[in-house]
């Protein structure tokens, strides 16, 4: 009765584009010049959106937000890898993913202004509203992917969560249930190194978050999340696998360059040296170097994208401000149930009488 190895596992780490912008041709996704430029544009747009949103918050125009600055590559690449019928299930730091998916920027601002209208899902669009409760949305992604398996769809579901969320029980339940039911789900962990102030090392003793998939019997893979091309390739492959009923956990290594939310001060728990180190690994700079080297971008193209993004953002901010003036608080009664019950109708009337 010898003592034998009962199980072994390995976790791959993928990087297609290194920090100097050098590419490994074997790992590059098959993308057209226009698609390569779109990835860049979406990253620049997301960066500017969050910078402008932080400024708006500081001026008191919008409420608390969780900027995705530094995480544009993983979000843009993942959202771009989705087909129209796929579901995207965000948490609360997915501005870049939402914008890439085609959600109008003024809707994100409305949500930040405290208007439910910003979380409305246009009819037929497969993007879930933001989920604030940490990790809880992993199960919704598992359920969507399970539903796709039940109905035999070719679509998949992609759910965003963070390194902190990987400690929640829901995340494990989601991996496990997805595995049992052949769910079409990709669980995308943005390991941005901090859950508010708690570093990744205090979140789990596991060497990778991707290996948390192993306990559920599904595949896990790690990718450099600041490498937009490597992430696009890994997530695309994971989605293809998920469509066949093989769910995957993808851990994207990235860094939250700004604060947890606008209510947070990272200087309490991070050093300027560490932040400077990650500034050098910025996902947009790295990709821009590569695109310029490849002849996809030049100064003129970058300037054009910058102007275009600013113009679009300006219009979105203006539209958000206009929408804010239309808030009718009584509407809070209207979507609690499909029909307003007499009991709730009485409360609505009392509200309008200010009683």
């Amino acid at each position, binding site marked *: 009765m010898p003592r034998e190895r009962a199980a072994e596992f390995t976790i791959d780490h993928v990087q297609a584009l290194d920090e100097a912008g050098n590419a490994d041709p074997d790992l590059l996704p098959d993308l057209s010049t226009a698609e390569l430029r779109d990835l860049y544009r979406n990253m620049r747009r997301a960066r500017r959106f969050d910078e402008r949103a932080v400024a708006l918050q500081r001026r008191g125009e919008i409420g608390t937000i969780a900027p995705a600055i530094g995480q544009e590559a993983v979000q843009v690449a993942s959202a771009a890898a989705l087909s129209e019928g796929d579901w995207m299930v965000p948490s609360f730091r997915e501005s870049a993913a939402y914008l890439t998916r085609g959600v109008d920027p003024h809707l994100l601002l409305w949500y930040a202004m405290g208007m439910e209208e910003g979380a409305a899902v246009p009819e037929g669009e497969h993007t879930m509203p933001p989920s604030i409760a940490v990790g809880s949305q992993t199960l*919704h992604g598992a359920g969507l992917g399970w539903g796709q398996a039940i109905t035999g769809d070719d679509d998949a579901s992609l759910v965003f969560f963070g390194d902190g969320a990987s400690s929640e029980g829901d995340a494990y339940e989601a991996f496990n249930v997805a595995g049992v039911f052949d769910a079409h789900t990709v669980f995308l962990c943005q390991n941005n190194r901090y859950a508010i102030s708690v570093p990744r090392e205090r979140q789990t003793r596991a060497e990778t978050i991707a290996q948390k998939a192993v306990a559920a019997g599904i595949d896990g893979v790690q990718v450099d999340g600041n490498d937009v091309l490597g992430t696009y390739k890994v997530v695309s492959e994971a989605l293809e696998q998920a469509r066949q009923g093989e769910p995957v956990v993808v851990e994207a290594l990235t860094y939250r360059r700004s604060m947890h939310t606008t209510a947070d001060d990272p200087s309490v728990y991070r050093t300027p040296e560490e932040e400077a180190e990650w500034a050098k690994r910025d996902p947009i700079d790295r990709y821009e170097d590569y695109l310029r080297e490849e002849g996809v971008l030049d100064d003129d193209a970058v300037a054009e994208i910058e102007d275009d993004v600013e113009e679009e953002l300006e219009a979105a901010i203006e539209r958000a401000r206009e929408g804010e003036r239309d808030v009718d608080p009584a509407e809070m009664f209207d979507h609690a149930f499909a029909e307003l019950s007499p009991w709730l109708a009485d409360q609505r009337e009392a509200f309008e009488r200010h009683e």
Partner: protein
Amino acid sequence: MSDQRNIVEAVRGTLRAELARDDDVIVYGQDVGRNGGVFRATEGLIDEFPNRIYDTPVAEAAIVGTGVGLAAHGLTPVPEIQFSGFAHQAFHQIQQHVSRLRSRSRGTLNCPMTIRAPAGGGIRALEHHSESFEAGYAHTPGLKVAYPSTPADAKGLLTASIRDPDPVVFLEPTRLYRAVRGEVPEGEHVVPLGEANVVETGDDVTVVAWGAMRREAQRAADGVDADVELIDPRTIVPLDTDAILDSVRKTGRCVVVHEAPKTAGMAAEITARINDEALMYLEAPVERVTGYDVPFPLYAREEAYMPDPERIRAGIERAMDY
């Protein structure tokens, strides 16, 4: 046409009928497949609907949380939580997501999930198997709560719940699962959510009781020197406030019975609504006959904990003698 059935049989027959009616209905949970459910409420369904019934891992948060995704995908999830005391392991999903999907998405997504769970004590079960948490669900905006007490109502309310566009927590009184048999209408039978049943009419005192307590209240009413009007609200949300108020305006007295703890229980809410709308009709303060504010005891003491006909009778007499 009607048939004598118990509540388990009525639930099973309703699930079968709704699975047959609507291909989007999915029944899943712990042991609901091959085993047919620990109370046999899903027995045989997996043979008739092999791709619509799923045994799940032991994971209540997953059972409810995946239902949000299933619903967003367009299916109608009808999960079973084996005992309602374990629904607390999914309560965050119920409170944070199931109840709010419609509000949060501004009405473009909904969650027509019916979460079935056995509830209440009286079957000498283990700890956490006897809870009656309807007030907690009632305190969660966006949820409906049904709590039938007869086989016919189990059928009618479950049919309405599964077809309802909003999420429903459907609590089934374990104590009555096999203890009561009754006529169950054949074919289509829908009891609208929010419509109370005036079980007995009377002029002296209104008694409000649901789930397993309805039978106890009925027994109490039979042996008391008062003409009791017995009301079974059948759904806790929406609550048929008008039926209760109309009755109280007639009788001037009210006793509310539930086996959940007294503090912040539904009896407090019903009392408040009577105070708001019918105070001047009252001849006596509203009486509450409820469980105590202690954890539901192990089975040696459960009979002592739960309201019984004697306690209910005493409550009625206090209201009459005030």
